[in-house]
């Protein structure tokens, strides 16, 4: 039987599974919103690069405004929402996440109307930090109480 040397990294398959499940939850659980998806084209996603013009940290939703060029080279001011401060602060978002003039790359689900409006799937900041949908408030309910 081959023995592991002391320097061999030991991988714990259970730990790997736990991280796998945790990352799946983090990347797939949608943020809770006070409204549903009726306004949005859920079949479409756009990746836009632009410059932040405003970051509003407020209820019922935080939203980001940024200038980005469309395919014809025209600059449009996009307005894209994310969750409320309480929920998104759990996954790394903060009042200080953006300042005017920051370069951002935003993955957006646009509205059906064609207006430069949508909701954020993820955003990459100038320093490389990625903010995603995170666990929001959609984490599991407490387990049933022990009688």
């Amino acid at each position, binding site marked *: 039987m081959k023995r592991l040397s002391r320097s061999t990294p030991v991988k714990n398959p259970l730990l790997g599974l736990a991280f796998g499940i945790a990352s799946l939850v983090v990347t797939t659980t949608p943020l809770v919103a*006070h409204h549903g998806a009726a306004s949005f084209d859920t079949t479409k996603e756009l990746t836009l690069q632009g410059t932040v013009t405003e970051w509003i940290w407020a209820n019922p939703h935080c939203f980001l405004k940024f200038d980005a060029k469309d395919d014809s080279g025209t600059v449009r001011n996009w307005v894209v929402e994310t969750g409320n401060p309480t929920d998104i602060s759990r996954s790394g978002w903060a009042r200080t996440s953006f300042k005017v003039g920051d370069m951002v790359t935003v993955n957006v689900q646009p509205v059906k109307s064609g207006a430069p409006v949508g909701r954020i799937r993820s955003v990459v900041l100038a320093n490389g930090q990625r903010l995603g949908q995170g666990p929001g408030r959609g984490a599991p309910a407490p387990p049933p109480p*022990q009688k």
Partner: protein
Amino acid sequence: MLKRLIVGMVVMVAVAAALTWVPVTYAQVWNSHGMIGNEQPPQTGPAPKRDLTGTWDAGGAGIAPRGSPTSSLTPWGEKKVSSYKPGDGPRASLIGEINDPLSTMCDPAGFPRNLLFELRPFQVVQTPNQVLMLYMFEKRFRTIWTDGRTLPKDPDPRWYGYSVGRWEDDSTFVVDTIGMDEKTWLDNAGNPHSNDMRVEERYHRVNMGALELTVTITDPTAYTKPWVGRNKLPLKLIPANVDLMEMICSGTEAQEYKKSMGK
């Protein structure tokens, strides 16, 4: 051998120190979202008698963004709901068309919407003649009288109604509420109610760290029969020194949101 023993003891002490230190630092965080997840050690053991004191959290189940399944609407209820354009649920509207008074105007959620939608952590304070419920969402409070008074006759409608409570047994607190203004919605799906609605809340303290909430709506003007909006919703006790975030809807911020996003 001795070296291994010493190393083992050091590791054990470090782990024990970490286990006791983590909850304390968590509890002392300012501006907490209140979501405890699995960070909190289980709080089991017998519950104190006739006592709901503490801060309670229903986790994600407290939000219920899609609304509640109700019993059938009466013709009055159908007429009432026909002008409601909710943001979610079976009758969900586009953002620019939503007329939910809570999300578009920041009207108070009202009672029992504050239990059926966005039930974020809330603190219970007991005095000799009242049970006070302090809600993180909207940063509002309710007074539940326990001094033996009866509910008022033909009261002026209020956003949060008039509540009296009694201990049915040492672990079950029952609250009856009437007098809610029918301009409030019951949930995020735009389910209506009338001024005649009566609501019963049952808080059952299961053990030290667990509470169950059942909410029953009786409104014969709007619904053909009573229905249960929360059925033994589990709530967990969170640390008493957690400082909860504000979750306040401001009219100016909501207007700015709708103007920007409702295109």
